[in-house]
């Protein structure tokens, strides 16, 4: 399918493809096993300007948007969605600053992100997952400062990021209108990290607890206004969901890539298994579903970049659809590989483990369906 990419978009895609093939592919298994954060790859991505793709030129970016972020995420995820997430979650972590930051906040932080500084977004808590309004982390006003207390859970890029956007309750009585978004820098006194999670998939991505104990944050670090924390979070997620969709499309495409190669090489009954209709039809379905997911992700990303206001439904649709496709396609990929597919020596079992998270994070696919449904009767 031709998506009529601009010259710059083609450069982004091709360069990410080259980096994936030459630098990421050889270390995929190693990072999947160790669970270490792939600093060496982040360094390459930074030097190649990949972190700049979604940032305006004013802040040393390349002037792209969600579409460019999605293109890079997809192409990197084709080889390793865990490693790609170091980049993609930086997009999520810095998006609140890009959307709601004042000029000096953007100047200070977005230029750093453009250079490859890792960022993270902290909303989830132990008892506040899909029900984010149940969060317990508080930020109490004390003069020019807010004092943060509480624990954020399962934070992607936690510990490795230097910049965090943290949502905390400034006024519990106001419910969802009592939350505020803060920019918190690593190293701030009272801000520490808990356990590093041992995950099923995307193991090259670091997931950690953030612990706030009387952590004093100056009021200049507030994003938008006090009380706007939920709006900041929701508007951010509306814009970054195509990134998760793109990650899912990349995982699915990566699974198809290896299946096409394997099914030509693997012989049974005296011929390559790619001759069998059973395999051919599976691959035809996998390709169709992946292309449909890609088309939906690209369309949603372009719609967001056009400046459209009502994007919740489309953003939820592309994330949900692509996540479900990735899960199905990778499951089928393991099936095509047969017994070999179940072994860690072959790449598809990892892809299947990685795919699962795309149905869970940045809003479970059940929550996405709620969002879609609630928009169906609007207008």
């Amino acid at each position: 399918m031709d998506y009529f990419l601009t010259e710059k978009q083609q450069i982004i895609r091709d360069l990410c493809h080259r980096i994936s093939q030459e630098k990421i592919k050889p270390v995929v298994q190693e990072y999947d096993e160790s669970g270490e954060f792939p600093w060496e790859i982040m360094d390459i991505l930074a030097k190649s300007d990949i972190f700049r793709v979604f940032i305006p030129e004013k802040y040393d970016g390349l002037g792209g948007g969600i579409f460019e972020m999605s293109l890079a995420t997809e192409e990197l995820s084709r080889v390793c969605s865990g490693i790609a997430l170091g980049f993609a979650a930086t997009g999520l972590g810095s998006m609140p600053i890009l959307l709601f930051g004042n000029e000096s906040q953007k100047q200070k932080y977005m230029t750093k992100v453009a250079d490859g500084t890792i960022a993270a977004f902290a909303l989830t808590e132990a008892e506040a997952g899909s029900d984010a309004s149940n969060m317990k982390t508080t930020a109490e006003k004390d003069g020019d400062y807010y004092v943060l207390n509480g624990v954020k859970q399962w934070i992607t890029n936690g510990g490795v990021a230097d910049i965090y956007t943290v949502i905390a309750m400034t006024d519990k009585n106001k419910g969802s209108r009592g939350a505020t978004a803060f920019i918190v820098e690593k190293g701030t006194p009272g801000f520490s990290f808990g356990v590093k999670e041992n995950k099923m998939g995307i193991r090259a991505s670091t997931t950690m607890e953030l612990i706030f104990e009387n952590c004093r944050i100056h009021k200049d670090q507030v994003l938008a206004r006090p009380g706007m924390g939920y709006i900041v979070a929701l508007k951010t997620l509306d814009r970054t969901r195509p990134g998760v969709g793109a990650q899912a499309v990349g995982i699915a495409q990566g699974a198809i890539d290896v299946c096409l190669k394997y099914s030509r090489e693997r012989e049974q009954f005296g011929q390559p298994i790619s001759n069998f209709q059973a395999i051919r039809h599976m691959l035809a379905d996998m390709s169709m579903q992946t292309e449909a997911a890609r088309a939906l992700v690209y369309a949603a990303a372009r719609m967001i970049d056009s400046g459209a206001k009502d994007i919740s439904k489309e953003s939820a649709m592309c994330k949900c659809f692509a996540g479900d496709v990735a899960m199905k396609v990778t499951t089928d990929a393991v099936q095509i590989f047969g017994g070999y597919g179940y072994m860690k020596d072959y790449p598809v079992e990892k892809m299947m483990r990685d795919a699962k998270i795309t149905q869970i994070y940045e809003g479970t696919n059940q929550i996405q369906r709620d969002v879609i449904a609630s928009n169906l009767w609007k207008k």
Partner: protein
Amino acid sequence: MNIVVCIKQVPDTTDVKIDRNTNTLIRSGVKSIINPYDTHAIELGLQIREKLGGKVVVISMGPPQVIDSLKEAVSMGVDDVILLSDRAFAGADTLATSYTLAEAIKSIGNVDLVICGKQAIDGDTAQVGPGIAEHLNTPHTTYVNELCNINSANITVKRMIEGGYEKVEMDLPALITVVKEVNEVRFPSIRGILRSREIDVPIWTSKDLNIDFTKIGLDGSPTQVVSVSTPQINTQTEIFTGNAKEQVHKLLEALNEQKIF
């Protein structure tokens, strides 16, 4: 620090075949690349610039198609590129080539360090780097695998020798040729690629240089390639049939016949 890196465009030899009738390289359809050692020279130039500031200029001599290789150097982040291209330069051996490159480096002016790859993968002479240094009357060190120290006055490097290395200190200006072990070559950056697509590569001809015309091109080349040939490969293959026992038996018979044992 003003650095000049000399590069050569070469056929990707992993693809190259030789026409057995004419004994020449079959160039058609073969991708041209920057000589791999030269990419390490570019990388070292960029690393030194990142440390000390200054400018990295990449030059190359060859036909207009070399513009593509120079644009690739731009995509990696070098400041300027210059192509030396003129029919008068054609047919140059290593002496004439190094003379021409040296004259171009003189024309650039105020160059502190020249970096070349240790040799080109097509000619394998390893003479052009040292040749340039001789024409420039500067010290040089070949086969450099590590840059130990560099400041505005001098440079210290390690050069590979059999069974070890030598540590060499030279006053600047100087020339070094590098091996692949010296660094890992970076990827191009998006901004670099965008700039490379826009840049107009300046082309210098013999008229742009202050040169002695008897020293360039075919006329300035005391060595000339008379012929190129490939070794005859005389192998006869026999595939044994039968079960494993029979095949082993036949193999032993054949080895005995050839008096190998």
